[in-house]
């Protein structure tokens, strides 16, 4: 435009006086002002028209940006929930109102009917009661207002005589007579009952004496027999009399009731409408009227609410963007809990929970939900409302009922009503909304204990996150740190909304930096301990309680220090420790083990305890997924022994362990049992009679009963919780006879903390019992080859250990016995080497934390005082407060993007497979299932002392969940400010 041709110079204009109206323009024309457009453009650097357009477009852009801003401010994630709930609740209100209306109408009609009947009855009575009248009772039968049925037959004659008494009132002649009769009969019945008591005593005595006499063959037998016969007859007679008298009284009772009612009706007749209060019909009528008044009031209340909540212009404005600051109906709900503080590291702030902004009905009993345990998470029918209307509402919103049959739509009913259409139209819920909304709107499953105002933990006082954890101040699904129960559920949450990929590819992602992620619902009971620290039984926390019992039975506290169970002498002798927290070590002491079992048996046992006894509490340390085939660069592949795959490395370690334990054991044999001949059959009788079987089973339960058959068929029994004492089956293949005799005679002699009582058996009895127990053998076990220490593997293991602390050369010299240091002097002999290795392995696998061992004179090791090998679960870094990035997931982590879990094969050619979601609970579950799983894929590079050592307890899914609940209960998130009770 800048190049636009300039207009040709104007020719000289001839001056003409302008017309008045055109003066201004004419002056301009005369003065030579050119047409604006082209010249103006030449004056300006930018194209003015283009600038205008740019300004216009940018202004439109600003408008759009502002609209976006308003929308973002308005579209809060919690609003859809409140909107949906408001609609649901409103439809329920509408439905309830209609129901109430119907009820009120029906009740009014009923009242009318009753009143009409009353009038009818009263009209039959004489209006001028001068003399007695006889009525036929049948006349009243049809009205149903007097208790007539069944009274027609004798002794009732179907008549009632009405007369006028001194006070000029109508009265029934029979009334007093019958009342007297009833009184008499009731009295007779009671006398008979009294007598029954006395006779019963005499009868029982006589019976007992007679039976005793029969048994002992007493010479007074015939006397007792006669006595018994008499008393028996008496007993039968009185019994019969009681029955008769009762029937008698019942019959008269009916008559009496009739006359009482009849009299009450007459009273009403003579004393006017306001009286006759004794007449049941009249009382019922009054109750009915009261009910109706109450319903009317409820209806009025609901109508008021209805008027407030119905869709209206005012309500729309209240919730509209920009005007919703004033008094919106949809708003964030706050529970400010001044009694409870949140510790935010540098500040202590009052707890504020906003959870019921979405979980609107959490304390509302109307919205109670029935949970179907057989269905999977995510199934539409897993959660259903108990309230029938709400069920129908869900069906309506889901579109699974025909519109014409729909209670919510109720087309006929709506015709005359204010709300013509339901607010939530048919089929307006998308797939998944049923589960989503039902779960969100459900009341707390234990309203008797939690959330409700009448419960012990009302929401107004306790809030939600005090137990559930998470960020109570936030109102976004992800940001409040909802945590899925399972990886499957996590996937579902991610899939429901949103874009296809990225960390935030789904609507939900784990907000990893929050200190206190919400407990998955299956573990929420772990937080009970926070306040109920000392409780051993809690209603509403069965998992926590069971978990505690299980942990105690399994003996987790042996290796993992927990402040609730203390076993180390330094703790137990500490006066400050609560005596209830002192515990014995989980396993039996091994102070005299050499006198109890054979070395071979012990080696076989340590290698695979469950193979000998399916219900043992001793875990499997060996034959695990991280068993090594390579020691000190030499290969020792798994070999097959008697058809079972065994690792020679495991065998060597086991043999050395056992050898070392034997070297510490007291070897002085128990005194030989007295030379008595035992009788196994008598022994069996004694075992069953004395009560051994209350604790000890004699038959072995197969292990498979306690194992999960498949993910769909988890086990429902726990061998740890079921069995209190070892099964005795196989004991004959295990014990030394002399030891067993000494044990049976007095268990406390060998093990003062044993729970087994002294049964005070005589020497003969004990001999019989031992004889019997020794017959309980496991022949196939006896055939198994015991693990033996392989000298070459021993050397390699020792070198590997030494290489960690010294040069290769020194290691070789030390192994050859040339190291003068006292701790290596055992290397001089082959046996010494095995013992040296055994000591290292006892320390490595922590045998001493469950079993008491004697102090080691050779190395000065005081096993009693050694800390367990596991991580402490309580204390300053409690497990329940541990963040998931403090846990080693190894290669088992699976986030679907950078980590894909591990699938490997172990030394025994068994598949090792794990896909662990990056969450604390998932880590724990997998750890409990296979404690060595996080070594998978690292076997080639991990040094021996970094290999995981936690033994395998063979827990099933149920047990894992219980243990995990208890482990997560150790936390430093104290609830301050709330004092229990």
């Amino acid at each position, binding site marked *: 435009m800048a190049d636009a041709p300039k207009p040709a110079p104007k020719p000289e204009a001839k001056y003409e006086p302008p017309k008045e109206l055109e003066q201004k323009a004419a002056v301009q024309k005369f003065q030579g002002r050119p047409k604006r457009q082209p010249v103006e453009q030449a004056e300006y650097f930018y194209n003015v028209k283009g600038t205008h357009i740019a300004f216009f477009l940018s202004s439109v852009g600003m408008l759009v*940006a502002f609209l976006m*801003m308003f929308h973002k401010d308005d579209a809060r994630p919690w609003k859809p929930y409140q909107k949906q709930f408001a609609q649901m609740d409103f439809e329920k209100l509408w439905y309830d109102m209609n129901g109430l209306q119907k009820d009120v109408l029906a009740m009014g009609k009923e009242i009318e009917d009753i009143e009409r009947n009353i009038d009818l009855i009263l009209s039959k009575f004489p209006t001028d009661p001068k003399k007695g009248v006889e009525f036929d009772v049948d006349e009243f039968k049809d009205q149903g207002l007097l208790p007539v049925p069944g009274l027609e037959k004798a002794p009732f004659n179907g008549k009632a005589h009405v007369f006028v008494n001194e006070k000029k009132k109508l009265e029934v002649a029979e009334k007093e007579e019958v009342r007297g009769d009833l009184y008499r009969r009731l009295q007779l019945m009671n006398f008979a009952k009294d007598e029954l008591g006395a006779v019963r005593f005499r009868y029982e005595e006589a019976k007992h004496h007679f039976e005793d006499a029969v048994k002992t063959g007493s010479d007074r037998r015939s006397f007792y027999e006669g006595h018994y016969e008499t008393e028996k007859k008496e007993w039968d007679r009185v019994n019969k009399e009681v029955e008769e008298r009762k029937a008698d009284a019942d019959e008269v009772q009916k008559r009496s009731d009739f006359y009482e009612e009849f009299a009450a009706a007459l009273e009403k007749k003579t004393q006017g409408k306001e009286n006759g209060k004794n007449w049941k019909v009249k009382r019922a009528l009054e109750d009915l009227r009261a009910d109706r008044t109450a319903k009317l009031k409820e209806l009025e209340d609901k109508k008021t609410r209805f008027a407030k909540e119905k869709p209206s212009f005012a309500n729309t404005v209240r919730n509209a963007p920009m005007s919703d600051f004033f008094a919106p109906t949809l708003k964030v709900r706050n529970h400010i809990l001044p009694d409870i503080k949140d510790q935010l590291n*540098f500040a202590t702030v009052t707890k504020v929970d906003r959870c019921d902004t979405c979980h609107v009905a959490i304390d509302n009993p109307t919205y109670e939900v029935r949970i179907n345990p057989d269905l999977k998470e995510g199934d539409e029918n897993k959660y259903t409302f108990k309230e029938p209307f709400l069920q129908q509402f869900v069906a309506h919103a889901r579109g699974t009922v025909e519109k014409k049959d729909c209670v919510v739509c109720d087309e006929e009913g709506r015709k005359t009503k204010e709300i013509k259409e339901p607010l939530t139209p048919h089929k307006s819920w998308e797939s998944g909304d049923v589960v989503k909304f039902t779960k969100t709107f459900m009341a707390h499953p234990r309203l008797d204990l939690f959330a409700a105002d009448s419960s012990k933990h009302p929401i107004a006082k306790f809030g939600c996150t005090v137990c559930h954890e998470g960020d109570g101040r936030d109102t976004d699904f992800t940001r409040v740190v909802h945590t899925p129960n399972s990886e499957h559920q996590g996937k579902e949450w991610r899939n429901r909304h949103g874009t296809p*990929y990225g960390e935030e590819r789904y609507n939900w992602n784990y907000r990893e930096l929050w*200190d206190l992620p919400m407990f998955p619902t299956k573990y929420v009971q772990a937080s009970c301990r926070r306040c109920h620290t000392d409780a051993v039984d809690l209603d509403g926390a069965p998992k926590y309680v069971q978990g505690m019992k299980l942990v105690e039975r399994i003996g987790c506290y042996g290796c993992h220090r927990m402040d609730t169970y203390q076993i180390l002498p330094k703790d137990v002798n500490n006066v400050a420790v609560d005596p209830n927290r002192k515990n014995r070590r989980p396993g039996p002491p091994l102070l005299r083990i050499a006198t109890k079992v054979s070395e071979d048996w012990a080696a076989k046992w340590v290698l695979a305890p469950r193979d000998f006894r399916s219900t043992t509490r001793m875990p499997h340390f060996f034959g695990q997924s991280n068993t090594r085939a390579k020691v000190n660069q030499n290969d020792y592949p798994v070999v097959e022994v008697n058809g079972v795959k065994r690792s020679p490395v495991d065998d060597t370690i086991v043999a050395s362990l056992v050898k070392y334990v034997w070297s510490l054991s007291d070897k002085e044999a128990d005194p030989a049992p007295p030379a008595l001949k035992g009788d196994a059959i008598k022994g069996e009788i004694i075992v069953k009679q004395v009560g051994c079987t209350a604790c000890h089973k004699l038959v072995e339960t197969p292990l498979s009963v306690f194992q999960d058959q498949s993910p769909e068929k988890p086990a429902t029994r726990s061998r740890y919780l079921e069995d209190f004492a070892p099964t005795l089956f196989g004991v004959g293949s295990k014990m030394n006879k002399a030891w067993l005799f000494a044990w049976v005679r007095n268990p406390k002699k060998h093990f003062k903390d044993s729970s087994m009582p002294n049964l005070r058996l005589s020497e003969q009895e004990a001999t019989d019992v031992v004889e019997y127990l020794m017959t309980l053998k496991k022949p196939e076990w006896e055939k198994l080859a015991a693990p033996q220490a392989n000298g070459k593997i021993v050397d390699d293991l020792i070198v590997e250990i030494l290489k960690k602390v010294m040069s290769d050369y020194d290691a070789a010299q030390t192994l050859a016995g040339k190291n003068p240091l006292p701790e290596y002097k055992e290397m001089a002999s082959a046996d010494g080497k095995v013992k040296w290795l055994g000591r290292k392995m006892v320390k490595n696998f922590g045998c001493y934390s469950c079993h008491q061992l004697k102090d080691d004179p050779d190395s000065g090791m005081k096993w009693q005082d050694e800390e367990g090998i596991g991580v402490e679960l309580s204390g300053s870094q409690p497990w329940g407060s541990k963040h998931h990035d403090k846990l080693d997931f190894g290669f088992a982590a699976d986030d679907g993007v950078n980590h894909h879990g591990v699938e490997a094969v172990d030394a025994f050619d068994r598949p090792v497979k794990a896909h662990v979601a990056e969450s604390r609970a998932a880590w724990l579950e997998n750890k409990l299932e296979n404690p060595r799983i996080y070594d998978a894929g690292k076997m080639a590079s991990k040094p021996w002392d970094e290999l995981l050592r936690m033994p395998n307890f063979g827990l099933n899914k149920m047990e894992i969940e219980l243990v995990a609940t208890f482990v997560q209960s150790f936390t430093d998130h104290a609830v301050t400010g709330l004092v229990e009770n």
Partner: protein
Amino acid sequence: MTTLGTIMMEGGTGGPLPQAFKDFLNSAFNPVVYTILSVGLFIGMLVGYRIWTKPKIALSLLLGTVIFFILAFPDLNFRKIVTKPDNVPIVALIFVLGFYTWWALRQAAINDERIDKGLPPMEATEANDRVLSWPDLIYSELICSVIFTVILTVWGVLLNAPLEEPASPGKTPNPSKAPWYFLGLQEMLVYFDPWIAGVVLPTMIITGLMLVPYCDKNPKGVGYYTLKERPFAVGTFMFGFLILWISLIIMGTFLRGPNWNFFGPFENWDVHKLATLSNVNLSEYFWVMMLGKALPMKPLVREAPGILLTLGYLFVLPPLLAFTVCKGLYKHTGFIRYNLVMIHLLAMVGMVIKMVLRWTVNLKYVVFIPEWFFNI
């Protein structure tokens, strides 16, 4: 091009770029490669400024960058870093800074060509041009302010403020990063003690910038873009700004992950990644490796080589240069100006030297006196 689905199934991290290419980038990238590449690009940029700034070439360079971003964007790890609300300004910085650099060098290229032909620079021809403040200035300013309001509003709506969780002494964020404009300084902390990287060098940046008008005696290039007439001034400033400041910010933002480890652009920021950092002091090189002796006990004796080297670098090198390589500069600026320029220049170059020594010979400190908290 494989579809996204197949790549996901094959275990890749998504997007049309072949996983092999991404793996190569990840493994090939490290601070050395990154710095060599950026210095190379920088030198190429200055040398070839008359060629690459031609609109068509520059536009294709821009297009290439944009296409790379688009292709790389679907990759989960790449996207995670690039779209982090904290990092979005740095993505913008790459493009904005690229544009202004191109603009300056393009103008310089045109002017230098004119100067070669004996013509005055473009700016001289415009000196007498006048425009009206309304509408040309104020109207366009108004439009710009509206457009900026739009951009800021939309940005504010689309990206949430990068707030994190309540601070906890027991759990610090990993990586702990400085604000984006300090990431260059934070990168220097890898090579220097805080007193140098955080105090001395930043102070010298400021004093250096303050000295520019007093030390720069070159009358040319005033009021117009040129590279030919002031290669030293422009080159030094751009090296300090683009390489030692901006490229370190970009590296700190996109390529430094947990534990301040270096990560490739498509690499997962694995907290457990381990990198070897076995560094050796100069004194150990000198006494132990060269002379085969143990380290002397006295710190001054022990560190004598490093101290001498540092002093020589700062105080002997400038006079040496003044009589040899930088004769012209010395003559042109005079004694005081020369020394001021040299001290600042050597400090700047010294940083690069230290970085190179760290990468090549694992040099930890030139002077290492922990007894006195004095390490260089």
